[in-house]
């Protein structure tokens, strides 16, 4: 048997198809979820894909956070449903307060698209078990509002609890505090990151690397073995 992994489409979501493809490539069953549906179709995990939901108007993720599908996701995430927020998905997770801190416009004020080197800081989440802590990976990054900020106290807490999941290496592409590229909640089921692992699952396209596949195999193994 395999696991059913849902990918949410909000108006303005762009990377839903790529995320579905990444889920399929990893061997799980991809399931499309629609923003107006509260029903999660019995999926075992959810990916909030990248893009510009509602045009990123107001603030990135601010309007999507209030959609019907998010009501269910917020509730179930608190009960342990694995949720991965990629880019806009990460922004939605912070707006929904499932993850602490907030996301602001890049410090250089430009959209940035680059191949980004990251360090995976923890393998102790539902989405990173197939990596080893300290492992360096290359993942495409593309965003306008990728600057992660939080109060000092919150940052210290994240560090102390090992909840900084990914850090930018070589270049901090957006001014994120403490080079943070992604974080997890305390339980490890909710993970958000700015770079796009779903764009790095095939050698042919994108960066030509498959460093992102581990996100999707991690969750698949966890769900199948559960």
């Amino acid at each position, binding site marked *: 048997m395999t696991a059913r992994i849902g990918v949410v489409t909000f*108006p303005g979501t762009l990377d839903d198809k790529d995320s579905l*493809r990444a889920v399929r490539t990893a061997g799980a069953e991809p399931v499309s979820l629609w923003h107006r549906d509260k029903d999660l179709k019995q999926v075992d995990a959810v990916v909030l894909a990248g893009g510009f939901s509602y*045009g*990123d108007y107001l603030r990135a993720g601010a309007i999507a956070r209030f959609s019907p599908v998010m009501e269910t996701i917020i509730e179930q995430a608190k009960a342990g449903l694995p949720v991965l927020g990629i880019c806009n998905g990460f922004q939605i997770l912070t707006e929904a307060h499932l993850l602490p801190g907030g996301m602001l416009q890049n410090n250089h004020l430009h*959209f940035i*698209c680059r191949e980004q080197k990251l360090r995976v800081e923890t393998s102790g989440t539902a989405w990173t078990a197939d990596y080893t802590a300290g492992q360096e990976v290359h993942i495409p990054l593309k965003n306008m509002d990728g600057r992660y900020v939080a109060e000092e106290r919150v940052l210290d807490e994240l560090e102390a609890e090992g909840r900084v999941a990914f850090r930018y290496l070589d270049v901090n592409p957006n001014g994120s505090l403490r080079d943070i590229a992604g974080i997890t909640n305390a339980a490890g089921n909710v993970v958000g990151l700015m770079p796009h692992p779903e*764009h790095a699952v095939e050698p042919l396209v*994108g960066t030509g690397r498959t460093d992102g596949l581990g996100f999707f195999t991690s969750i698949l193994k966890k769900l199948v073995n559960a």
Partner: protein
Amino acid sequence: MTLDTVKHAGETPEAEQPWKELGLKEDEYARIREILGRRPTGAELAMYSVMWSEHCSYKSSKVHLKQFGEKVPANDAMLVGIGENAGVVDVGQGYAVTFKVESHNHPSYIEPYQGAATGVGGIVRDILAMGARPVAVVDPLRFGAADHPDTRRVLPGVVAGIGGYGNCLGLPNIGGEVVFDACYQGNPLVNAGCIGVMKHEDIHLAKASGPGNKVVLYGARTGGDGIGGVSVLASETFESTGPAKRPAVQVGDPFQEKLLIECTLEIFREQLVAGIQDLGGAGLSCATSELASAGSGGMRVELDTVPLRDSSLSPEEILMSESQERMCAIVEPDKVDRFMEICEKWDVIATVIGEVTDGSQLEIFWHGEQIVDVPPRTVAHEGPVYNRPYARPAWQDALQADDANKLARPANAAELREQVLKLVSSPNQASKSWITDQYDRFVQGNTVLAMPEDAGMVRIDEKTNLGVAMATDGNGRYAKLDPYTGAQLALAESYRNVAASGAKPLAISDCLNFGSPEDPDVMWQFAEATRGLADGCLQLGTPVTGGNVSLYNQTGETAIHPTPVVAVLGVIDDVTRRTPVAFAEEGQLLYLLGDTHEELGGSAWSQVIHDHLGGMPPKVDLDREKLLGEILISASRDGMIDAAHDLSDGGLIQAVTESCLRGGKGARLVVPDGLDSFVFLFSESAGRAVVSVPRSEELRFNDMCGARGLPATRIGVVDGDEIEVQAEFSIPLSELRTAHEATLPGLFA
């Protein structure tokens, strides 16, 4: 305020009308009266004036563009030719590709961000209207001098606007150009292209047929955007109480367009439309008259049903509004409900505004009163045609006589080295990544090649790995020296770029950017360039599928360089065999393909070192280009080369620098016998490329070139971490990298 109805117009033949303010000529106005047999109503006058503008009617360019339809190469790929929103070509496996380039030059100067953004929005809707899913965009750009303060205003805004719109739509940006030249100072060129993919059976056309079919307007509400001249009508003739001056600039809403795309594709999937047209320039005037003109019957529109953003708009203004993110579909009555449901699903407003009639007139009503009653063809397709006078400019001979080959050359190896660094760090030759990194090239997960490759390439079928490639090129300096040759060089370069990536060039689109057609010098440039392009396409076997003409690109009396931009579309049956530009493998052999002559006219070297423009551009040999293309494609198919980079502006040293930096490897070069090292490095002879050949393939590769008669000269080897030109100089890659990559951030960051 009295409504100027058809009846009223009939009763008041003598009423003064602001035809002049709307840009019509006296004889054009007379012709409208003759067509209608009475004076036009205000609404009719507004429609004719925008549809008969240069931008919409191509009245100055038509006589020359005709050649693209006459000199058509035998080519089975063409499915839909010039005249539709965009041309369509067959790329095999049941797929069809539509693509086109358009300009948004003037708005981008006034409001760089929104001007450029709405340029992307407009071309994407054109592609969508053909029935295709847009899959990639490209953006050929030209700005004034890189260090001019106004370029600092215009460039970052344009780039942010293209990125802001395209990124938000989820369309990878896979190529384009950035050129700086003082001639574009008051008139930057912002061209944008889009590629769309569909199955053959999904091709849609812009025509309204079937009496009783509904006309559905969907997308954004209509506001007072981009009305420009029509405010004259509203304020002067009709004592309007609305705001006197409407803005001529539109604001784009990429989020709305993204919804429009998804909604429209779902509507196509369920086969709910009989005809479809995007709303772009001239808004509803254009969409209704073109749909009706191309169809079999007439059309009746209730204009007061159009959803408005601003209730003070007059009917004339509604007809002219260029509000973005709107489409117009012709829908059979029993499909309207389902159509509306899909629009509702995507939060897109849709309204039935009229229907197709069995008459022959386009009739428009405002609260029950008729304000338009015209034969649609006279608005949309039978506008004025001008055979404008043209003549070879008096200064052309002197310009060509000012030979760049006679300019002072570097006196020694140290100067040669210095000039190489100067060249690769000059704004035109420097890395464009500060710009292209603001564009999403990964989205949709199908990008096989993107900037800074020779051509962008996207996969269009995940199972078979079928893909398409595109490059855009144009060199205004060459075209200024000789517009006929310049246009062919643009075509040749773009063709070469596509072939270098491993794809087979199929067809082209173009964007012809010129000065005022009322200037005989400019008109001559235009005539020569179109003739050159048409002849070139015939010879290369790549038909022109469509394009765009932008005239009046000038500041005061001074026209820009004639700038024909050519976009070549190629197809590749298996994207896994694409050829990148990077020299990545130590020890591989570098071969120069083609002949190098002493050709420095219009070259980057003459511009960077001498600020000079004169002489003759490089010669074109299109048969040679074709042969080079075939060799590059064969070599890619048979695994004989690992990298290829075409040679163009900046010459060999520019290409080698780019390929070395991309691959992170150095090169040792030997100047071939009989060539001067300066000419070897800087000449811009056409029909050339440099390739990297694995040693194991050298024999086979040489044999192939020899057998087919393409000169192939071994010029060096991939090696080390510097570029060394034997017996002349060497430059560490790190030094080259800084020179090449620091320029744009230094100017614009």
